[in-house]
């Protein structure tokens, strides 16, 4: 029982600023394990990956220790305080307190990777210059131990001027209780003294600060001296005042001479790091662990490249082969459920809403959950094991020939899951031109929302024949993925050759060691993905299914029911037994089709049909495609609903209904050229509002999303037109 319990205030009544006692920034090198630790401490599920640059935005979470609430800010990784790429800018801006809408952090939780002290200490040393309360979490101590690195923590603490250091293993939670307490006490911590690694720099900073208008922190003066009067340092420059500003260039000149400041700074600081390492690190990391061996093998030109394609082929094969049994189960389940609803409720608007609208619409999307999870599982494994970074390295040369760099590979592979995080991952690309070209290529990558469309059409229209070790269906899917890659790359090339001409992109990438993926991490991320997918199915897709059902069901025609009755009566005179039952069914199907055609959806579909007729699409396909513009997987739900109401309803599964669908004159709608065209359309068309929004945000202009939409839609249309016209000729 605490005394405080009586005066507890509901959380929503506490002013936001007071909800936490302190704001602490989580800072460290890229891929040092910041997000893993952050998730452990706050319980938030951040994306985790074993390549540098997974976190490209800041994330805020709360850490509760006793009665204190500490706000933790997970930042993108950075190697130094002079930012190089957009994500590093975000980290540095938050650290210096110049990020809009965020106050200066009250303290810094440094994440120091025990297996990479070399780059880690380079950053820590600069962070100490900030004179903020600071605690070091020495993470990955398990990995360090395994590879034979011994670290003398007491000596390291001394070398860093007495900063508290807590050895932890973020993946298992070892050492976290002590760290938690230390973080809670951080605000009262007195910052340690600066470490003077470079006396001349200290002297120059002091000289500059003499005539400053407002007091500047040492770290701020340092930035001015090393990075110069660049845009990011505007605020510090203003504090300096007019007089001192004139002096800045002179001081810099005498400090650096003709040498590039960043180069000289790096040389001197790393010399200090090496000195510290010699004292605190018992045994140098062995150059050859099994991980390095694997890396070396994979990086051999031939096995590496073959391996890359093999890995991708296995993924696509798995997406098809492993998921099928579960999908068949869901499909059958939905059909049984729909039928029993109709039986229990009888015919009528309500029963049709439940069976044809909701079960058929939502069910036809949910069925793809197994495939999507398998796909995500592979991407998470590739990411977490460190393979993605290898892929970037392997592909750099190929990417260079199209005006991109290997760094563009990671956003592009992420886009196979979803273009939104993929586009956000482009922030690690330092050059703006390269970044935009990659952003334009990303939506061409086959995302998990395209997968259901492909899967449906392929399962229905491509025979499941065995070709070599692969299934023909898997092969076609692989081809579609390849098509997306090629289209994306050609687009990037086109853009780099026209609108964004410029010097060829640079490439420098840290290659993490292979790690055994952390099962818990993989599972948590997979679960998160499943939730997002089901949430969408339950909200967006559900709503669309209901709306589409209503549009397809209403208005009810007055003249159809009497006509059906009349025809059935006539049939009863001439036929009997099974023949009569079949005739009854036929008449009902024709009636259902007629009802559908004069529904709102039918009328709208007929209205747009001329535009899509050259592609071989009837009004049903056209209206489904149009409904899918905000989110492409909606098309499946619409087809599911439309075909549940229409005359193919008794075909059972959706793919069966598609196969049975005909033009009024009896020709099949879904011919091979038409299906190929439809697949091409889906491979190209940018039917995703979320992607457009993220392009707008990431490029900070309307020009690029508008261009992307027009460009991709036209290519899709032309591709489908060509496929159908040539194929049917």
């Amino acid at each position, binding site marked *: 029982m605490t005394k405080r319990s009586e005066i507890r205030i509901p959380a929503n009544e506490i002013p936001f600023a007071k909800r936490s006692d302190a704001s602490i920034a989580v800072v460290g090198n890229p891929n040092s394990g910041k997000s893993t630790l952050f998730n452990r401490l706050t319980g938030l599920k951040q994306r985790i990956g074993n390549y540098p640059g997974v976190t490209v935005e800041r994330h805020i979470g709360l850490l509760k220790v006793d009665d204190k609430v500490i706000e933790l800010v997970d930042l993108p990784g950075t*190697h*130094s305080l*002079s930012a*190089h790429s957009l994500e590093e800018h975000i980290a540095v801006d938050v650290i210096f307190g110049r990020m809009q809408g965020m106050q200066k952090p009250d303290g810094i939780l440094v994440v120091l990777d025990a*297996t*990479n*002290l*070399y*780059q880690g200490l*380079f950053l820590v040393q600069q962070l100490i210059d900030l004179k903020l309360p600071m605690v070091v979490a020495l993470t990955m101590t398990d990995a360090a131990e395994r*590879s034979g*690195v011994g670290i003398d923590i007491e000596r390291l603490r001394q070398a860093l001027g007495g900063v508290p250091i807590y050895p932890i293993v973020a993946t298992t939670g070892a050492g976290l209780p002590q760290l938690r307490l230390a973080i809670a006490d951080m605000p009262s911590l007195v910052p340690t003294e600066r470490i003077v690694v470079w006396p001349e720099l200290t002297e120059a900073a002091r000289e500059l600060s003499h005539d400053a208008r407002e007091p500047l922190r040492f770290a701020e003066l340092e930035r001015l001296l090393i990075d110069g009067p660049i845009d990011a340092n505007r605020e510090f420059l203003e504090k300096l005042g007019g007089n001192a500003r004139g002096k800045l260039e002179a001081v810099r000149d005498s400090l650096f001479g003709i*040498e*590039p400041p*960043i*180069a000289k700074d*790096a*040389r001197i600081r*790393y*010399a200090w790091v*090496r000195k510290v*390492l010699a004292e605190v690190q018992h045994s*140098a*990391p062995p*150059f050859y662990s099994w991980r*390095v061996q694997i*890396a*070396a093998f994979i*990086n*051999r*030109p031939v096995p*590496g*490249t073959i391996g890359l394609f093999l890995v991708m082929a296995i993924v696509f094969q798995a997406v098809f082969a492993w998921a099928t049994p579960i999908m068949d189960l869901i499909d059958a389940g939905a059909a049984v459920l729909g039928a029993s609803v109709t039986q229990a409720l009888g015919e009528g608007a309500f029963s049709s809403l439940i069976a044809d609208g909701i079960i058929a619409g939502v069910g036809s999307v949910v069925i793809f959950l197994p495939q999507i999870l398998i796909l995500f599982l592979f991407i998470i494994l590739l990411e977490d094991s460190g393979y993605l970074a290898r892929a970037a*390295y*392997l592909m*750099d*040369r*190929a990417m260079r020939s199209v005006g991109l760099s*290997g760094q563009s590979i990671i956003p592009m592979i992420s886009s196979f899951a979803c273009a939104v995080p993929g586009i956000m991952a482009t922030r690690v690309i*330092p050059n703006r031109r390269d970044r935009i070209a990659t952003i334009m290529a990303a939506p061409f990558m086959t995302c998990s929302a395209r997968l259901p469309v492909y899967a449906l059409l392929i399962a229905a229209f491509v025979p499941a024949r065995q070709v070599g070790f692969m299934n023909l269906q898997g092969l076609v899917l692989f081809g579609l993925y390849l098509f997306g890659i090629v289209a994306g790359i050609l687009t990037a090339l086109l853009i780099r050759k026209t609108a964004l001409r410029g010097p060829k992109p*640079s*490439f*420098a*990438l*840290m*290659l*993490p*060691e292979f790690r055994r993926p952390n099962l818990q991490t993989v599972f948590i991320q997979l679960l998160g993905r499943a939730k997002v997918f089901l949430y969408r199915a339950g909200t967006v897709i559900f709503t669309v299914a209901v709306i589409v059902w209503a549009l397809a069901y209403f208005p009810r025609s007055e003249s159809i029911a009497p006509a059906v009755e009349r025809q059935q009566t006539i049939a009863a005179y001439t036929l009997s037994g099974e023949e009569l039952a079949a005739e009854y069914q036929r008449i009902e199907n024709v009636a259902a089709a007629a009802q559908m055609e004069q529904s709102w959806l039918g009328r709208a579909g007929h209205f747009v049909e001329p535009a899509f007729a050259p592609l071989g699409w009837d009004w049903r396909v056209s209206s489904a495609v149009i409904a899918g513009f905000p989110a492409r997987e909606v098309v499946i739900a619409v087809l599911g609903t439309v075909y549940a109401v229409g005359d193919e309803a008794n075909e059972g599964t959706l793919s069966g209904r598609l196969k049975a669908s005909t033009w009024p004159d009896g020709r099949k709608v879904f011919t091979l050229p038409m299906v190929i065209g439809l697949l091409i359309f889906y491979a190209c068309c940018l039917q995703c509002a979320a992607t457009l929004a993220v392009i707008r945000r990431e490029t900070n202009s309307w020009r690029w999303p508008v261009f992307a939409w027009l460009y991709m839609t036209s290519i899709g249309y032309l591709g489908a037109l060509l496929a159908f016209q040539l194929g049917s000729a």
Partner: protein
Amino acid sequence: MEINGNTLATLKRGEKGIIRFVDAADPQVQRLMVLGLVEGAEVEHASSAIGGDPMEFRLFGCGISLRQEHAKYFKVSPVAAGD
């Protein structure tokens, strides 16, 4: 100290060298220095991709990949095997 025109680009796979001089005019090279490729650092050429480009170097246990066009700005003196 013998340098003899050896650069990171001329190190063979498995060979180690100590960086002796960096021609840092190119901002990309400066970036690599921030990553730790500076004078005094010992590096090993770990692997290269198709056509020998880009190259991967090991440096105090971490891997850095860079292109040959930049590797040639880092002059090295070889370290004898078994060091």
